């Protein structure tokens, strides 16, 4: 009972911070007119624009909000999926097999510090300015985090656990799948979440460059047309979707990672 009240109190604190920001925002725009609407539109205006874009409005950028979201998701999830599907097995293999580690790790260590955005020029050169070049950029953003964390996770496998498995007569394959990968699973999930974060960041940057649709494109056009309300709607959408995707991964992690420390 007491616990519930405490939880409720913390909820109120969270709500307070949001309300305070909204209130100050309203105060400096609609009420006191301290900031010009061309710089910062009022919360009411932003809400209006959000509703307009959500309910099928295509101005000023030629597509509804849902169409932009769909375009962005197609790129982000495409690049992310490929990045993770390559990165996780690569990290596991590098950590598990000494020969493969010697072979692949130096190459990976050179690629690792290159920011995903630094691949943009090459990607455009190789794949044009369409869908695949953006997928390529997202791929690098996701691939790096997925690989590093899977690698580190497998490396954490305890020697004693391997001893236990081997006294039980486990094969090398069983040790990988029944001991090393379960050990690494929490870190693999961390990698998946970090990869998602960097994919989402890279997405917006990639879309600022060359696109006809997508959330990054939407805010870029809005800047050129002097529509800060649309920019803010776009930013909020990017934030909310990023949060939702990361929540989905967190739910999956809670489902598949058992037992705590």
């Amino acid at each position: 009972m007491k616990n519930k009240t405490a939880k409720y109190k913390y909820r109120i604190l969270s709500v307070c911070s949001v309300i305070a920001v909204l209130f100050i925002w309203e105060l400096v725009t609609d009420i006191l007119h301290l900031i010009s609407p061309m710089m910062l539109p009022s919360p009411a205006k932003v809400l209006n624009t959000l509703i307009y874009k959500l309910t099928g409005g295509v101005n000023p950028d030629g597509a509804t909000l849902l169409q932009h979201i769909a375009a962005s998701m197609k790129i982000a999830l495409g690049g992310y999926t490929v990045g993770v599907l390559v990165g996780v097995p690569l990290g596991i293999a590098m950590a598990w097999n000494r020969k493969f580690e010697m072979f692949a790790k130096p190459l990976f260590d050179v690629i690792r510090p290159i920011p995903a955005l630094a691949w943009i020029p090459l990607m455009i050169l190789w794949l044009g300015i369409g869908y695949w070049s953006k997928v390529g950029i997202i791929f690098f953003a996701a691939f790096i985090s997925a690989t590093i964390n899977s690698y580190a996770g497998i490396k954490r496998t305890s020697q004693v656990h391997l001893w236990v498995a081997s006294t039980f007569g486990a094969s090398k394959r069983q040790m990988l799948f029944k001991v090393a990968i379960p050990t690494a699973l929490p870190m693999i999930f961390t990698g998946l979440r970090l990869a998602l974060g960097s994919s989402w960041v890279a997405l917006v940057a990639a879309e600022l460059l060359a696109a006809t649709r997508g959330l990054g494109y939407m805010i870029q056009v809005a800047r050129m047309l002097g529509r800060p309300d649309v920019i803010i709607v776009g930013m909020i959408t990017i934030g909310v979707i990023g949060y939702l995707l990361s929540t989905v991964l967190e739910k999956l992690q809670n489902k598949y990672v058992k037992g705590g420390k």
Partner: protein
Amino acid sequence: MESAAGNIADVLKCSHISKEFDSFDGTGKNLVLEDIDFSVKDNEFLVLFGPGQCGKTTLLNILAGLESPTKGEVVDHGKKVTAPAPERGVVYQKTALFPWLTVMGNVEFGPKVRGFKKEERKKIADHYIDLVGLKGFEKSYPSQLSGGMRQRVGIARAYSNNPSLMLMDEPFGHLDAQTRYMMEEELQRIWQKEKRAVVFVTNNIEEALFLADRIILMTNCPSKIKKEYIIDLPHPRSYVDPEFLRLRREITENMDKSM
């Protein structure tokens, strides 16, 4: 009658084992085990007792087949040990449970790896979980258990492959004193119920005397066998029994004091 070449009642024979490692600076060798020679009889509770941290885990790993000796050999039921096998179960010091598996998952891990069907391995696991007194905790994760309970799971897990020999590496070393006494009694009870040959490593003299049929006293660095004691006090033993105290004094006096 026993013959010098080892007899049928010997589960495990450890002949003239030495083990050296490269020293840390890489210039020489560190001798950790020197000419260790003993055998373990069927259903015998053998305690390797000695001071310090030198070589005992290495010795158990050699007996288990996880490491190979520099000199000498280990023979299990007439066959030379070259690799780990389910016939030699191991209970480790701590953190050896799989944290991502439940109590049930941990105990049925061995049978699962060996390809037992689901109902069979559940039956095996149920039996040993019950034996170590953890009925009702099947679905708990190790992080939800106390240190003593975790070690019970470790014991059940080692039993689950029905080994002829159990190797125990200071299994109660990190428990608090109270829990430790309790676990010693529990181990005694479990072992009386399902006897196996046991090699139990400890640096605690009370624990050694409470559990052992025979104690092998080891020296410190490199570990050698110093002396052997047959302990034929009846179970359950009392820590204040005069004979218990006499043996305790005698063994302690023979023990290497320097570290």
